[in-house]
């Protein structure tokens, strides 16, 4: 029977290709958000397809983080946000998250006065969390060793691991990840990328990332924002193969290194 199964990597790639044709997990249509008198999002449209990593790119202030916060209901907005085909704009954040959204915020936002173990205990909201805690500890052994340490005393990289671990504790339909490599040393960036590759093996990811090398490693699709509007959407490989287009859209040269696999980063069969 096992011989009839496709190889894991092939299965993941097939899932990613099939996901591109499947109905989106997340649809955002004509999303407008105003913050402090500024019209930050001016009619954003995007779709995140199942089993794929979609990178949300753009210059500073383009509206990437605002998009994630509005999707989560942490900022008020108008327009339409659909999760699995259901309108969710205006649904309270806690209720929306319990439908299966994991969130890794910009700047980690771990609870500094709580221990590592308490941060994880707080995030556990499903019956599967206890079993997944072991896997999270396998992924981030440092967190197991430091489970009694206050999160505020961890290094930046360890705090990022904790922020990702919190999101991975529960099985999610969608993972929103905001600049996970910001301010991290290169060695830690590699660990974070590896963790996100594992996460992407089992869920759909919307990733905000300034580091184009990381975006190229992880993403299958890209959406580029410019001044609160979508300036480009398409497959990641296509965009990164065109350095001129990357420079025009993002103001930087294209990332070096090989592109990620179809659908974005995934390590088939990897846990969690």
């Amino acid at each position, binding site marked *: 029977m096992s011989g009839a199964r496709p190889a894991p990597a092939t299965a993941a790639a097939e899932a990613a290709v099939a996901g591109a044709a499947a109905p989106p997990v997340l649809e955002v249509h004509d999303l407008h958000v105003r913050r402090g008198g500024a019209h930050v999002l001016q009619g954003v449209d995007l779709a995140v397809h199942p089993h794929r990593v979609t990178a949300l790119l753009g210059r500073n202030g383009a509206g990437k983080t605002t998009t994630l916060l509005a999707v*989560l209901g942490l900022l008020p907005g108008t327009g339409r946000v659909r999760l699995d085909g259901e309108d969710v704009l205006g649904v309270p954040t*806690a209720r929306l998250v319990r439908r299966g959204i994991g969130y890794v915020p910009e700047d980690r*936002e771990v*609870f500094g*006065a709580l221990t590592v173990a*308490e941060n994880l205990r*707080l*995030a556990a909201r499903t019956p599967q969390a206890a079993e997944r805690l072991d896997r999270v500890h396998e992924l981030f052994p440092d967190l197991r060793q430091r489970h009694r340490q206050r999160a505020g005393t961890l290094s930046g990289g360890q705090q990022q691991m904790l922020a990702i671990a*919190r999101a991975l504790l529960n099985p999610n339909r969608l993972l929103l990840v905001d600049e996970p490599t910001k301010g991290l040393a290169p060695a830690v960036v590699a660990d974070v990328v590896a963790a996100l590759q594992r996460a992407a093996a089992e869920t759909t990811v919307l990733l905000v990332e300034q580091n184009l090398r990381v975006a190229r490693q992880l993403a299958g699709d890209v959406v580029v924002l410019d001044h609160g509007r979508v300036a480009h959407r398409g497959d990641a490989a296509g965009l990164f193969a065109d350095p001129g287009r990357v420079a025009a859209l993002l103001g930087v040269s294209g990332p070096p290194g090989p592109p990620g696999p179809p659908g974005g980063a995934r390590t088939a069969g990897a846990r969690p």
Partner: protein
Amino acid sequence: MSTFVLITVTGLGLAGLYFLLAAGLSLIFGLMDVLNLAHGAFFGLGGYAAWLVLDRLDVVAGLGWRFLVAVLVAAATGFTAGALVERLLVARSYGDHLGQVLLTIGLGFALVALLGGSFGYDARPLPQPAWFGATTPLLGARVPNSRLLVLAVAAVLFAALLLFLRRTRHGLVIRAGVENRAMVRALGIDVSRSFTLVFAIGGLLAAVGGALGAVYFNGINPALGTSQLIFAFIVVVIGGLGSVTGTAVAAVLVALVQQLVNYYGAAGVGDIAVVGLLAVVLLARPQGLLGAVAR
């Protein structure tokens, strides 16, 4: 020496009352950004709930047992009043700071007027067990037992509150919420239940403070809680918003400075010294002694 011991223990008793009034205030502000100006009314409610039980509930034989029942009834009254005020009134004004100030000031006035209309404005002394009026020798001083009682109850409730915050899921949510409420929501946790619980706990602590305050101040009047509220706010700011331990430390500092300066300086100067202490702490440590951390 005996006078110093007496003044110090009396100050520690007052610190217990300040802690009971300020702890809920601090958690409410730390978690919800709500400055509850009606908090002093919970103190008054507790005092009158205790007075009613002690004065009218003669089915319970023995003033000692009746006092215990009175404190439990005061606690239940404060808990219920806190929960109702949060659910029915304050929950409608989250994010609207001016609305909250007007609402809680108005509620505070209304509750004081309600108590005054129901019980009159003169202080009503609590019938007390004889033991309360007796003294206990301590380091050469004869300390009134009522002061020791207030201090002991406040210490037990402080320990219970810390246990609740550190050992329960609700406590974990409250501690995290004081630090970053939006992130708690983003983890899928409905913080509004914690809001109600914190308000109820704040009401409970203040109401127990009211029952004990009626003993400490030899009677309860409708405005007693409101008159103590200013010192509770000073305690909250010195201790650090949202910090229960900070509140306890600040309550001891404020009460001791107030009592000792009032005695060794001149009557009334202690209140000014407390304001001076507040200024010094704010200059040296604007976030308060223990910052915005619920611990």
